[in-house]
């Protein structure tokens, strides 16, 4: 018997190992348990979570937006500072000699 044929045959035979509960009420009990869980009114923690989740998400979005804005403003300001030093010559006097730094 080839490897493939062995596995095919084994697969046919193994299908009978599917679960069959001795407890016949399982198939009525399980849907009832699930129904009870999903139709139960939300408790306080779930209600709070439902409210806080979108609020937290909004704050996160705002914080991310603020961080991006601040970093953009800081970058713009530092570029302006370099530019203003370049456009205004700096003069330093040492022992009567004046040294001028320009662009």
């Amino acid at each position, binding site marked *: *018997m080839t490897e493939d044929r062995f596995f095919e045959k*084994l*697969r046919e*035979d193994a299908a009978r190992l*599917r*679960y069959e509960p001795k407890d016949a009420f399982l198939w009525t009990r399980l*849907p009832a348990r*699930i129904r009870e*869980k999903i139709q139960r009114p939300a408790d306080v923690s779930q209600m709070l979570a439902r409210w806080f989740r979108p609020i937290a998400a909004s704050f996160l979005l705002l914080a991310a937006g603020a961080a991006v804005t601040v970093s953009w403003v800081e970058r713009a300001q530092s570029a302006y500072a370099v530019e203003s030093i370049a456009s205004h010559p700096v003069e330093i006097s040492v022992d009567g000699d004046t040294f001028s730094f320009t662009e």
Partner: protein
Amino acid sequence: MPAGRLMFAVQSEVDRTPTEADPNEQRAISAVKSGDAGSYDYLVSKYMKRVVSIAWGIVRNADDAEDLAQEAFVKAYQTIERFKGGEPFGPWIYRIVTNLALDVLKHRNRFRHEELTDSHPAARGDRADLAAVSNELASRIDAAIQALPEMQRVVARLFLVEHFEHAEIAAMTQLSEGTVRSHLSLARAKLRERLADLYEGSND
């Protein structure tokens, strides 16, 4: 074949029908998304046998399997907004229950030492729930699969017993298809060795 088993087999085939072929399933999903919790009953009834069977195959304990099935259906319900319309519900619920069952295995492995020193370690897995174990052949196959290393056992069971294909198993276990094939290949070699006396004499 007893009538009960035949009905179960037919039900399993129904379970594997794609959603496109079952407009009721699509309607139920849409209704649940719109807040009609009662429509979820249809999905539960359609998939529960297979979901319990998958869970039981991994955790081998009837109570745990029932709890896992419940947890999987509740989780699927709570996150149904994320479920893409038009897709079959089956693979999604199978993936959820497989992950939950694998988590139980991980948890058990973590506490294996305590389990091994337990005075009734055999109580963990209840073979008695498996009606087919009374059959010699089924019993031998079951024992051989159970003797495999953990992931080989999980993958082999999903392939051999539940008849999922490689890609389906990969999606359910979050392994790559190559890894699934590799586990199956190793499992096949071991199973062939262990079941040699049952299959080697057969010419078909």
